[in-house]
């Protein structure tokens, strides 16, 4: 028994036994803290799920830890309620989907321009894009709103989708990925074979960049899906509103006086699809967080 357990009694460096007790204690503390944080992260969504399955009358009797059977009734009610929820979800899907598509394709193109070609002003443009990376969209929101109104783009998805073509953050990620995954020799070979530059980009560069594109597409999609500030300045017609605007409307309507089962179902309707997709893709997402921002 001593023999089989010896690997646990000594740490990797063969430190003396005195420290194993402290390692065990530290390990227990770590697990306790991690479990508490897990509860702290998930409990809200658990209560949300429980409450979305209950009726208004049931909810008013206080909290209960197990679900009821009203989930589909509540969902059906919000689909036929005063808020255009289904329309909102379709709008959100369109805006977020196209944003993810455009931002990854064109950011890859911008990164490719800086990565593959040596032209005058290349370095200056690179520094410039890095420098504007941190400037928040809010500080130019006033001019943005005025521009959109004067061009008749109020209640249009264009101002929410097209600007994502010039995303410094996605560009930076793509550039970093290219540095280690897109050898110049490969491009040279393609050129010698007589391929045109646009063809090289579409048939060689884009397929090679697929892993990076996938990660950034997920982030861009989620970011756009969750975005509230700019869409709320642009979209005022009911049939154009995205989900976050409808959530704000739900809050402003003082829905507490109405059917709480529906309120919870509505919140669940905007949160759970993202959670499900996240759980399916979490491996790529958690791995992708660091790669773009800081080099390890």
């Amino acid at each position, binding site marked *: 028994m001593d023999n089989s357990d010896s690997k646990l009694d000594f740490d990797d460096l063969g430190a003396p036994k005195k420290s194993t007790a402290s390692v065990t204690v530290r390990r227990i503390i770590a697990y306790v803290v991690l479990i508490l944080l897990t509860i702290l992260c998930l409990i809200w969504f658990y209560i949300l799920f429980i409450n979305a399955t209950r009726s208004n009358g049931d909810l008013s009797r206080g909290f209960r830890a197990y679900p009821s059977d009203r989930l589909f009734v509540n969902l059906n009610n919000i689909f036929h309620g005063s808020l255009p929820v289904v329309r909102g979800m379709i709008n959100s899907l369109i805006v977020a989907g196209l944003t993810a598509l455009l931002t990854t394709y064109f950011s890859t193109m911008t990164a490719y321009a800086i990565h593959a070609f040596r032209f005058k002003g290349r370095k200056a443009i690179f520094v410039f894009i890095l420098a504007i990376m941190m400037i928040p969209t809010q500080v130019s929101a006033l001019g943005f709103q005025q521009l959109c109104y004067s061009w008749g783009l109020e209640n249009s998805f264009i101002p929410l989708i097209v600007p994502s073509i010039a995303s410094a953050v996605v560009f930076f990620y793509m550039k970093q990925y290219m540095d280690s995954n897109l050898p110049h020799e490969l491009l*040279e070979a393609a050129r010698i074979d007589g391929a045109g530059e646009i063809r090289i980009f579409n048939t060689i560069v884009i397929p090679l960049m697929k892993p990076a594109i996938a990660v950034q597409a997920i982030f861009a999609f989620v970011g756009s899906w969750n975005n509230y500030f700019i869409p709320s300045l642009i979209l005022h017609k009911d049939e154009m509103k995205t989900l976050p605007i409808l959530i*704000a409307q739900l809050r402003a309507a003082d829905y507490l006086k109405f059917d709480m089962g529906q309120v919870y179902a509505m919140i669940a309707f905007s949160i759970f699809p993202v959670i499900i997709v996240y759980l399916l893709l979490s491996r790529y997402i958690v791995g992708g967080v660091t790669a773009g*921002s800081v080099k390890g």
Partner: protein
Amino acid sequence: MGKKLSHNQRVNRWGYIFLIPFLLVFIIFQLIPLASTIYNSFFENYMSGLNHIGPKFIGFANFQKLLSGHELLQYTGNTMIMWVLGFVPQIIVSLLLAAWFTDPSLRLKGQRFFKTVIYLPNLIMAAAFAMLFFTLFADTGPINSILQSIGIISKPYQFMSHAGSVRGLVALMNFLMWFGNTTILLMAGMMGIDTSLFEAAEVDGATANQIFWKITLPLLKPIFIYVLITSLIGGLQMFDVPQILTNGTGDPVRSSMTLIMWLNKHLYSRNYGMAGALSVLLLIITGILSLIVFKATASNEVDE
């Protein structure tokens, strides 16, 4: 590098062509709006009832009004208090978790699971998350119901009527949404540290605590600065959570009104002069902060 000189400007001209979409969209949707925002800040331009006043050039008068009013100070204070309340626990917990996750002697199991869970709140729609907290912490909501049933309080606590609890809830949400992200960033930094340093320290008999404080932390300084400043820039942009939680009022008595909520109010009331001045001020502050990040992390990326 391995680049042959046989291709000359004719090939490299394509660099400019591939840059066109970015530059075009950047100029139209970012540069022009930014310039017009700055332009607006020098004009008297607002709605007084149904009357449109201005636009009339008034120089720096908007800035004077902005800087002399009590609101700027109050809302900056609100924003900073809520940011600090969220950031301090965030950085402490993240450092702790990152140290544990990367500590080979601890050999924690289920790391993938824990990382997945702590990153989850970051992807939740902030507006929906805030709406959820609003309903959970309502006077008749489940949190009050739970607290009452276990006997901590005898009658519902009005979370939305006290400055402390509203700010606390905003900070809690910000903490939940960002500590997973910070943990992962710090872990990347810690794993980048040369492990021979740790081994040498252990051979010399340093304890886990000493290694953390004397080796890990000092070497983490650049990434620490990055996390601090980007979080501060993010904090200045705080909007969705307090906006939805308080329905845009920032109540009680505007104690949770943030700078961007104020900007949003100006935009909705078409008070363009003041909105412009506030935007320019925020631009200058974030510009300075970005410069610090840029110096600390990105500058070495450019030279290759």
